[in-house]
């Protein structure tokens, strides 16, 4: 009896999970489907699901019109660069907060998080002026620095939470065995926190990849990443939904594939320390 209840509950849970999963995934699926339609099919009423003449024409048009590889390369550099730079700064910071906390550690953490509470547009003009002065407008270096700074509080917070789960005694033992600070962080702490660091890295790459406010406002032609590539296909006067969908699919494909392959690490990292 108890067994059958469990099976029923399992079925309900599974169905609910699938339903929610499909609901969340539906806009992406719809974008992908639309990218294979003609512009007339894209606006067809009733909407066409799978039974239409699939075409690659939109991808051909987008390829011909835009230099996709340049946008992709900019995205890779900016998202990857800002994440790696952020980790280099955040690992020592999180180490000190987790293992040698001071009276003000909690306040510093809160203060770091509070910088995320200000709407980005509030500091757009000052940052724009600073960028003009430093000659950083429309450069990958400038965007890498800005995105690193924007995501740094999240990186520090995530790493801090993971590091807190690691017993301080292990690091103490390493110190007693004569490990220097650098060795302690590099050879003892980092290997133990690999799942946490990996999920932080992945999450921040995704955040930086999808960041559309700064990447649109601080770039023009040279450093524009894939967000600008998508924006160039949006139009209030003309029906270009199929082409816009093709551009969106091309822009999200790399990060979607990366997420797919690394979902195990991502989930493990995000639930790290949740169950004791």
């Amino acid at each position: 009896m108890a067994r059958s209840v469990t099976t029923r509950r399992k079925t309900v849970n599974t169905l609910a999970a699938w339903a929610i999963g499909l609901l969340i995934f539906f806009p992406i699926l719809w974008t992908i489907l639309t990218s294979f339609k003609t512009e007339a099919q894209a606006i067809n009423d009733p909407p066409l699901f799978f039974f239409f003449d699939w075409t690659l024409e939109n991808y051909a048009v987008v390829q011909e019109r835009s230099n996709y590889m340049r946008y992709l390369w900019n995205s890779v550099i900016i998202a990857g660069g800002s994440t790696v730079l952020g980790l280099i700064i955040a690992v020592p910071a999180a180490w000190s907060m987790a293992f040698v906390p001071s009276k003000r550690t909690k306040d510093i953490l809160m203060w770091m998080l509070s910088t995320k509470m200000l709407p980005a547009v509030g500091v757009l003009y000052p940052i724009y002026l600073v960028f003009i002065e430093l000659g950083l407008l429309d450069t990958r270096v400038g965007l890498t620095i800005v995105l690193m700074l924007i995501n740094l509080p999240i990186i520090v917070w995530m790493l801090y939470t993971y590091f807190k789960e690691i017993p301080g005694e292990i690091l103490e033992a390493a110190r007693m065995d004569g490990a220097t600070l650098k060795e302690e962080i590099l050879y003892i702490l980092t290997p133990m926190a690999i799942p946490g660091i990996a999920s932080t890295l992945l999450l921040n790459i995704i955040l930086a990849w999808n960041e559309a406010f700064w990447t649109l406002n601080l770039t023009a032609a040279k450093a524009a990443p894939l967000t600008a590539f998508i924006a160039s296909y949006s139009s209030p006067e003309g029906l270009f939904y199929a082409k816009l969908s093709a551009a969106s699919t091309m822009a999200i494909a790399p990060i979607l594939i990366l997420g797919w392959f690394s979902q195990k690490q991502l989930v493990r990292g995000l639930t790290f320390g949740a169950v004791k």
Partner: protein
Amino acid sequence: MSLKNALCAVTALTLITTTGAFAETITIATVNNGDMIRMQGLTDDFTKKTGHDVEWVTLEENVLRQRVTQDIAAKGGQFDVLTIGMYETPIWAGNEWLVSLEDLPASYDADDILPAMRAGLSHDGSLYAAPFYGESSMIMYRTDLMEKAGLTMPDAPTWSDVEAAAKGMTDKDNEIYGICLRGKAGWGENMAFITTVANSFGARWFDENWKPQLDTPEWKEAVSFYNNLLTTYGPPGASTNGFNENLALFQQGKCGMWIDATVAASFVTNPDDSTVADKVGFALAPNKEGVDKRSNWLWAWALAIPAGTQKEAAAKQFIEWATSKDYIELVASKEGWANVPPGARTSLYQNPEYQKVPFAAMTLESINAANPDSPTVKPVPYVGIQYVAIPEWAGIGTAAGQEFSAMVAGQQTVDEALAKAQANTAEEMEAAGY
């Protein structure tokens, strides 16, 4: 030997620098629409003729407007040529943000630019942006449905004619709605249309002392008419329909009539996208009986040069190329006359080949019927037909647009929408120091 090498290197460097001074790379900010995309595909011709390279930054209209305003106000120097509209041109020229285009060579034939376009793109009598393409608004209607209803559309109809046609063509059981109009909130969406309706009912946004006039009987009559027309004969969910949504409905044969931008004519008559391509007729935007102003607007996407660019000469060469008669010929030779950028030059409408295009004559007539310097029956202190060319307009128009969109959605009455729009406009204008 090393001295010889050094000399060679210096000579080579000098040569590279000198050639480099002639061949520049200019950055152009533009919007994503058919004519602009076509231009991007043809830039090889410009590079071949001048040696200059072109880099494009294509953005959605509202994003572009914000991005370009920010760059030009902060003197960021990111762009050498800007695509701007008729609304921004006089305001930005007044702020000394744009380079005057009065010194274009005689071969460019600036006098050939349609007078209405020239007026809308000038400030203190000087041209500050060259029209790439221009548009007005007009009625696009289904000839087959009109015939079925036993009606004929006059070339210059009144609002009563339009209402009768909408009533006659509506067949809700078969999902055919007599009229499709903009209902989506936004100064460039529903407010563009509603403002032209108001003009054609004798209303105006401000009196000569900049006092908002939305509490006048003319406004009430205009907005009541619009609301009634759209909610009675329009499609469901009209309060969220903008240009694109109505275009999709019309192309699927669900609208009997659509009053919108003249550029839509080339879309709805294109058999690749439209199911009703061979059944579309055109007529002038309507007016109220006895009112001397029609409800057609005037708009142009134009090319301008931001003050302070380091590449002014190359930028000017680009504008000359893109808005020239030769460019029109180039597009015609590659893509056919129906695809040339319309509404900018008088000579285009004198061309016998272009006269064969079904919507050419009505487009010109619509543009000529619009006068941005005198948009209303009563005198006004502003320029602009479907907008008021002051910096505060974007905010005022957007707020009013939200009220009228809520009205079409049935969330409030005409009186409530007008009262809120009037109060908000008065507040904004007072805060702005008018």
